[in-house]
Every structure is written in structure tokens, then in C-alpha cells.
């Protein structure tokens, strides 16, 4: 790759990781611009990872004020009230992230994410959303897809001991390496809307139960007009009822979404720090892969449940996409 060479300082700082992904990848990273929304635990972990990795810039959007809940899985914010007063979540996280790696520009953009136009998103190579409503996910995903350049789009959610990552790299080309062989691969990703519209009965029987459970919770929050995570054990009967309805409509055996799993997701709306670390780590790796073009990107969902310990990739896309 032609481009400026890494500085001596960069080579020294990134020595160990350059040995993993090479100097070209490091150069690409240092020119990338990332946007994140939703400064909770998982995103905090993710931000730490990519700031340490040495991306070009990171822009944070989250105007919310600091709450006890926001602090629970976030290691970027000191729980000191004097420090927190008047600052938004994004601003506090920016201050800490800046210290992690002075070579990365970390900034805050204020405002409502859904009101930002195409020219705003056009500045970024990667957009990551966390704790967003179904409608916001769809909206921002579509906005990114309409841009002339390819923007990698991710959503990430952690509830209780579980986590989910969604990836949309649109049309993505990369060189797949296996031992000595390198093959050119092209992956075609569906949008979030397209992915979740794939009829459940046409999905393979082994698809992670978490996929279905997360969709039920998502639909429930949307129907009730709740913010993500605004759910508690009292909602369980209604959630179970909704699950029954959806399963019937989708002709899916109800046992594919165990009630116990839904109960866990409803009860443990908060993030679980070890899961934040794991999901934030996987997401960091995925974003680094997508920017650097090194490594197999996951398509298009990733699930982790600390109960069974599996971190599973699921490809949820229409086998016969239209057009």
C-alpha cells in the first residue's frame, strides 16, 4: 500500500500489534474515522480497544447525563459528582479516552443522532450503535447505506449474561488467508431491516436462540414505546405473550425461545461487565478487520451467552435476495 510511513513513535507504540496485522493495516487504521453512539459499558470497552489500536479519530455521541446505571459497567467515568456535574456521558468518556492514546483524536458531537444528515455520516468509515431502538437502528443503517462510500455499520447490545453484535459491511471484498492459500472473497451483507425480515421458518434449525429472543425483546420495547433496557420482571408475562404471537406468525416452535432465556434478558437489562469486555473485544476485532482488510469478518450476527460460553457467528440473510 502506498501511503505515508508510520512514524517512529507509532512503530514503537504499536510494535506488538503491527506484528499481528502488519504495517499496512496499521496505516489504514490510523486513517480511519469511527462514530459511536450509546456510551454504556460495551461501547466503552469497544472505544478503549480501538483507541489503543490507534484509529485516526473517534467521535462520540451521547447527550445523556451520568446516572448510576451508566456508571455500573463504565470504567471511563470517575463516580465523583463534582467531576460529572454538567457534563454529558460522551464528554466524560472523551476525557478519559484521550488519555489512553494521545495519537487518536477523540471528540464529542452533540445532538440527536437521528437528526444528523447524510453529510454527517459521510465523514466516517465505521458507525457503531449501542442501546438503540429498533427504529433508530434501521434508520441509521439505511442512512449509511445511501452514502456513495461504503460505511461499515454495527449494532451492539448486551443484556445480562448475553451479547449480540450485528454487522453490515454492504459489499465487502477481502483476501481470505488459510495457511499458505489466499483467496479473494466477496461478501454481500443484508441491511438490518433485511436481516430481521428473513422468515424464521426458513432459518436453519440450529440458529442461536438468542437471535430470536433478542428480536422478541426488541419488538416488545418498540410496541410499548420503551427505551432500550427499560424493561423489568413485571413485563415478563407480556413478553412471553408476545413471543407466543410471533412464534405463531412465524411458524416457529415456541421451544426455540426458552422462557428462561427471555426471563434472564428481561430481568438483567443491565450490562454484565465481563460480557461487556468480551463483546467489546470481539467488536473491536471486527472493526479492525473491516478497516484493515485483514482477517475474516463475521457475517452478520454474533452471539455470546456466558451460560454456555459459546461465541457463535450466525449468518442471517435471505438465501435468495431480490435484485
Amino acid at each position, binding site marked *: 500500500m502506498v501511503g505515508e510511513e508510520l512514524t517512529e513513535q507509532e512503530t514503537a507504540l504499536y510494535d506488538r500489534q503491527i506484528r499481528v496485522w502488519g504495517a499496512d493495516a496499521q496505516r489504514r487504521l490510523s486513517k480511519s474515522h469511527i462514530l459511536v453512539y450509546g456510551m454504556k459499558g460495551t461501547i466503552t470497552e469497544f472505544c478503549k480497544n480501538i483507541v489503543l489500536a490507534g484509529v485516526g479519530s473517534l467521535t462520540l455521541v451521547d447527550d445523556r447525563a451520568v446516572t448510576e446505571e451508566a456508571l455500573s459497567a463504565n470504567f471511563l467515568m*470517575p463516580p465523583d459528582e463534582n467531576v460529572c456535574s454538567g457534563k454529558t456521558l460522551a464528554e466524560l468518556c472523551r476525557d478519559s479516552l484521550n488519555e489512553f492514546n494521545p495519537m487518536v483524536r477523540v471528540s464529542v458531537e452533540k445532538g440527536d443522532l437521528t437528526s444528523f444528515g447524510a453529510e454527517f455520516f459521510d465523514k466516517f468509515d465505521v458507525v457503531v450503535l449501542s442501546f438503540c431502538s429498533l427504529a433508530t437502528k434501521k434508520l441509521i443503517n439505511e442512512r449509511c447505506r445511501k452514502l456513495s462510500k461504503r460505511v461499515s455499520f454495527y449494532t451492539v447490545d448486551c443484556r445480562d449474561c448475553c451479547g449480540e453484535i450485528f454487522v453490515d459491511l454492504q459489499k465487502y471484498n477481502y483476501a481470505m488467508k488459510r495457511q499458505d492459500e489466499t483467496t479473494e472473497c466477496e461478501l454481500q451483507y443484508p441491511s438490518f431491516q433485511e436481516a430481521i425480515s428473513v422468515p424464521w421458518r426458513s432459518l436453519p434449525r440450529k440458529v442461536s436462540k438468542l437471535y430470536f429472543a433478542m428480536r422478541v425483546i426488541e419488538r416488545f420495547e418498540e410496541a410499548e414505546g420503551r427505551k432500550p433496557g427499560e424493561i423489568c420482571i413485571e413485563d415478563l408475562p407480556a413478553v412471553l405473550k408476545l413471543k407466543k404471537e410471533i412464534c405463531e406468525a412465524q411458524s416457529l416452535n415456541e421451544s426455540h425461545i426458552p422462557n428462561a432465556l427471555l426471563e434472564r434478558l428481561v430481568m438483567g437489562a443491565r450490562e454484565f461487565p465481563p460480557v461487556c469486555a468480551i463483546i467489546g473485544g470481539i467488536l473491536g476485532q471486527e472493526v479492525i478487520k473491516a478497516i484493515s482488510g485483514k482477517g475474516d469478518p463475521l457475517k452478520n450476527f454474533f452471539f455470546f451467552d456466558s451460560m454456555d460460553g459459546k461465541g457463535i457467528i450466525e449468518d442471517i440473510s435471505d438465501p435468495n435476495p431480490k435484485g
Partner: protein
Amino acid sequence: MASLQHSQEIKGAKVLMVGAGGIGCELLKTLALSGFQDIHINVAAVIGVNIGLMGINETAIAVVSWGSGSDGFGSIGFKVSFVCEMAEMIRSVGTRYVMIINKLAFVMETTEKQGDGLPYLEVIDMDTIEVSNLNRQFLFRQSHVGQSKAKASVARDAVLRFRPHISITPYHANVKDSNFNVNFFKQFKVVLNGLDNLDARRHVNRLCLAAEVPLVESGTTGFLGQVTVHVKGKTECYECQPKPSPKTYPVCTITSTPSKFVHCIVWAKDLLFAKLFGDKNQENDLNVRSNDSCSSSENKNNVFERSDDEDWEQYGRRIYDHVFGYNIELALSDEETWKNRTKPRPIYSRDVLPDKMTQQNGNADKTDDLSPASAMASLGLKNPQDIWCLMENTRVFLEALKLFFMSRKKEIGNLSFDKDDQLAVEFVTAAANIRAASFNIPLHSLFEAKGIAGNIVHAVATTNAIVAGLIVIEAIKVLKKDGCYRYGSIFSKINENWFVLNHMQHLCRMTYCLEHPSKKMLLMPVEPFEPNKSCCVCSQTPLSLEINTHRSKLRDFVEKIVKAKLGMNSPLIMCGLALLYEVGDDLEKDMIENYTANLEKVLSELASPVTDGTMLTVEDLQQEFTCNIYIKHREEFDEEKEPDEMVLSGWTQAPPEKKDDKTSIGNGASTSKSLPTEPMDAQKDIDVKEILDGTASPGKKRKLPEFSEGCSPDQSNDADETMNHKKIQKLDDDDDDLVMLDHWGKDTSKKQRSQ
């Protein structure tokens, strides 16, 4: 109480974590966030002699070696005086310097900052924060590079910023110190390892076994990682599977017939570098001779002596011509060797670089200059990723050699290769490349050569973060189980598919982070293995040792077997009731003399002779680890295959290296002929890879009949019907085949899930 979150067990639990490196930082953060309130950290200090100079903004770190006789904390006064001497020089330079001398570091501010002209002095761990740590050890900042604090304290302070009310106790000491004994370990509910070396891992493993404390062990390299749980009697211990020893190369490959770049690196590092700058009396006299043609016309002893009328360049060129020219010619004369090999070509400096390197850089002449002595800098070579041509390598070789003798004269004779020593890396890169050119092996960049020579392990922050998360999950499960035993079944609420947490099934899991998905999985959990019945550590199975009892000394046995192979720290060796050797602080003078004398004796000539059929008992009191070794006398050993002249069998036999070291980057196999200074980083790397390879190749995959054995006998008592039922239900619920990992050992057929 299905969730692992908000566990009561977490709050009261006292946990010990060992290591504050990449995994350690992530682990401490995740523990604190997860609600752990009593965390103890032990940072093992790494002993190493470092020489190097790095520039970081206005701060410069001068890493200064002190002779090999100094052991760190033993001689502070000595060093302080040295530092004051250095302070004079620093004051004149006018920036801030940190000096690291063996384990100790001294921070000095210049008069400018202090105002009073006195050097500001503090002591920190040797395991200091380096620039190349910052990309993943996120609790440390640029400002901590050289800050006068130990890693564990810095990490502690960083975590207290977001969790001020928890207790974090740092210990800045080697975990192998005698005060971290079994009683110390017993106070913890669980021990979490985030270590980077095999030695400390083995030590902690033994203490955990002795103290009966569960151990969560971890390791990462690049995108690969693994987390395993070790519970005495229930699962295999860390040492149940043999750990591959560092890759060794046959001597003749290194000295005569290199075929890979790594062979050239080993030659440059362990032979040439050591000969020129290290202890000249070392017995590495296989060194620069190409083969055994002793008819050498030149006096070998004198080749490396500089005569008075030579300048440094002449001297350098003479060494150059000797090792790259003359020695190759000599090797070529033995035609037998080259029948089936490509002949090397001798290289002489005048052919590559006819002109004298005239540009005498002014600063290179000043011996007291503190700017980094670098051949690259003086020759204007910038990019460490570039591959130098033969001419450039020649110039670097000559320049680096000159710089060593001119600006680092005091260290000559005591130097050993260090990957953080820029000049040493430059010299070794150039020498290896010239040799590679001679043998028709592709040349490599300094960056690549540094990785190979320094056994640098790939590391990224993300894998550490993931592994730390997995460690905490396992730790919580361990604690939950502990809670169950104490409070009875508090998880009595059993719903349809509810998991029952209070049993081994959920207690133990090995998890692998994969680079490429396997069975759609990036994180792959595996049921743990049961203890290896022939493990000499947790099953105390005797070992047998083939050794020439008429030739080998007790010292050979102590160094090569007891310390290197068995990983004992303070051993005690008995032959029947007779004490042959022991290490301790409280020994009588005559005892010490006796032991020292014993060390030099041949085994069969000891007062209690060790001969064929003798049973030796080797014990480490601190580790509470005893091992019996049957001695088998053997007369002859294969020089190339068994260079130790000893063969220990039973359990430590690592499998032969399967991996071909074709990647130029020095991860995997240790590239040193002997044990490198920081040898073990690479170990677990191999570990992980081997295991993963095993998983990936279908031939090795193996499905066990699910729970065919039911519970292992020792657990059947506390496993009632319901639990068995539940377990099976859980498995039915799970469609995927459980992947069993085949370990390499010959005992695979005995392996079962610990359930």
C-alpha cells in the same frame, strides 16, 4: 438466581491475580466493574539485563545494564552512587531521564525541574512500563512510562479512580518469593493468572494445588487466547499436559548448514554477538568456526583480539572477513557437506564495500553521549520495516560494531542480547542478513529480525479484553460453587430449562478464542479434562531419567533437570535418607560448603552414589512439590538430538515441533538455541496454536459418548439424581456436538470430561 450477575459471593471473595500485563490490566478492570471488592495483585518482576535507549517525546529512558553479578535489590548503595555519577551527565543534557538498572529504576529530574540541583530518585520494579506496552496495558499512560511507581500500584490507582471503594492490595514482588507460600495462597478463594511466562505459571500452579485453591489460567497471542480452570482432583492441573520446550536447533545447522533465516539469527545472536560483546570465556566455542577443521592456519584465539595498530573499522572488517569469508571458504573445503546442498558463497567486506566508511559522525566519538547509540541513526536508515541490501547490512554491521566498542565500552564482556537494545538488534539483524546472503536465504527487515531474535509475542488489546472477561466469568462460577457448598443449595429454584449452577459442569470450562471461526464459533467452550494420572505434579507420579552417572555432575542434574525441566525454585535433593543438595537461607556454613562440593561431583562418585537403579527424591518446600526420579544409567547420547545428555521421561516430554517456522515473524517457536533471556513468552503461544490446530484438523476431532461414564466416582456422592437429570437435559437441549480437544500426549485415550 440464574444470572451470574450481582452475586453475593463476589463481594466477600478475596481473589489474587498474578501479573499486571496486558491481560492483568483488563482483568483488574473487569473484576472491579463486576463487583469484586478485595483484589490482591502480584506482579512478578522480570529479571533481565537491559541495555538500550529510547526516545519518547522529551522523556528518554536509558536502560542501563549493571554487570551480571548484581541481582537487583541486593546492592542499592552501589547503584545510587552510580546514578549520582550519571546525574552529572544528565544535568548537562537538560532533559528527564529514567534509569533502569536490573530490577531497579531511578527517576531523575534535571535541575531545571527540581530547582535544587539534586537528582530526584525513586525505585521501581524492573517490570516497568514500556512504550510498547501502552497499546494494550491501558491502565498505563505515556506519563507512566518511567514514572517512579511499580506497575501494580499504577494499575491499582487507575482502577480506584472509577471504583474508589474497593480494596486493591498490590505486591511488587516476584510471586516466587518465599513469603508467597502455601499459607499466603490459602487466604484466597480463587487465583487468576495473567502471566507471560511458563516458569511463574508452573510455580503458581503448584502453590494452588498445595493450597487447594482453584486456579483460572489464561494466555493470549495475537487473536488467539485461552482460559482454563484448574481445580485440584477435579480437572487437570496446568502441568498435566507437557509444555513444549523452546525450539532448539541442531548445532551443525546453526554453525554450518543454515537453511532458514532463524538459523542465521541464532548464529548472530548466540554465537557472534555473544563472542564479541559477551563473556568471552563462555563455552560457546562452537562459535564462529564453521566446522571442525582444526587445521585452521590462523590462531583462533587471536582473531577476536584487536591489535593496537587497528582502527575500529579495520578491526570490524577483519572480523567480517573472518566469519563471512574465511570461515565459509573453510566450510566449502569439506565437499562432503555440500553434495546435496547449495554451496554458500564467501563474502568479503572489500567486495561489498570497497571504500572506507569515511563519514565519521562526530557524536559517535563521544563516549559520554547519552543519545541512543544507533547504527541506523548514524547511517541515516529510517524505516525498520525496510529490508537492507547486502551493502547496507555491511555498513550497519561495521558501524554497530564500532559503536559498541566506542560508546559502550564498559559493557563489553557482560552483554547479552536484549530485544530492547536497539544497537544489539541492529548488529544481529545485519550479521544474520549477511550470513543469510551467503547461504542464499532471503533477507529480512530489522523489525522482523527483532521479532525473531527477541521471541516477541504478538499481542493485541482486544484478545486480552476478551480473555479477561472469560476469566472473570469462570472466577464467578468458581465462587458460586463455593457458595453452594457453604450455604447448601441456594439455587433450588429450578425452572424448565434452568441451569443448575452448583455443579462442576458449570464450574469448569476451557474456552478458546479462535482467529478463524470453527463450527461457527469464535469463542469455543470445551469441557475440561480430568487430571492426567501420570502427571508428576498433581498425581506425583515418579519419573525416570536416563543419564550417564559416570560423567554427569550433580550440577548438571540440578540445572538441566530440577530447575529447567521440573521448574523447581528452591530444591532439596535426597538419595534415600542422604541429603545431596538443598537451597535455603538458614543453612549452616559447612552445609553450604558440602553442597557446593557435591555440585561438582560426578553422580556415581557422591558420598551416597547415584547409579543405575537409584531413586532420587527431589522436593521444593515452598511449592510443596515432591518428585521421585528413577535413575537409569546410559553410556551414550546423541549429540544432536539429546544435547543435554539426559532424557527425562514420564511426563515432561514435549511433542516434537510440528509447526514449520515459515512465518518470518518470530512468534511461535523460540528461536534460541539455548534458553533465551525471556524465554517463555513464546511458550503458551505454541500451546494455544497446537491445541487449536488439533481442533481444526478433522482427523483429531473426536466425539465422546455423552456422559457415558456418568460422574467420575469422586463426585457421585454429591451429585444427586436431579442434577444428573438436569445436566443431561441441558446437553440434549444443545444440538452441537461437543468438541473434544485432543492433546498430544499419549494418554489421550484415558482422557474424559471431568464429569
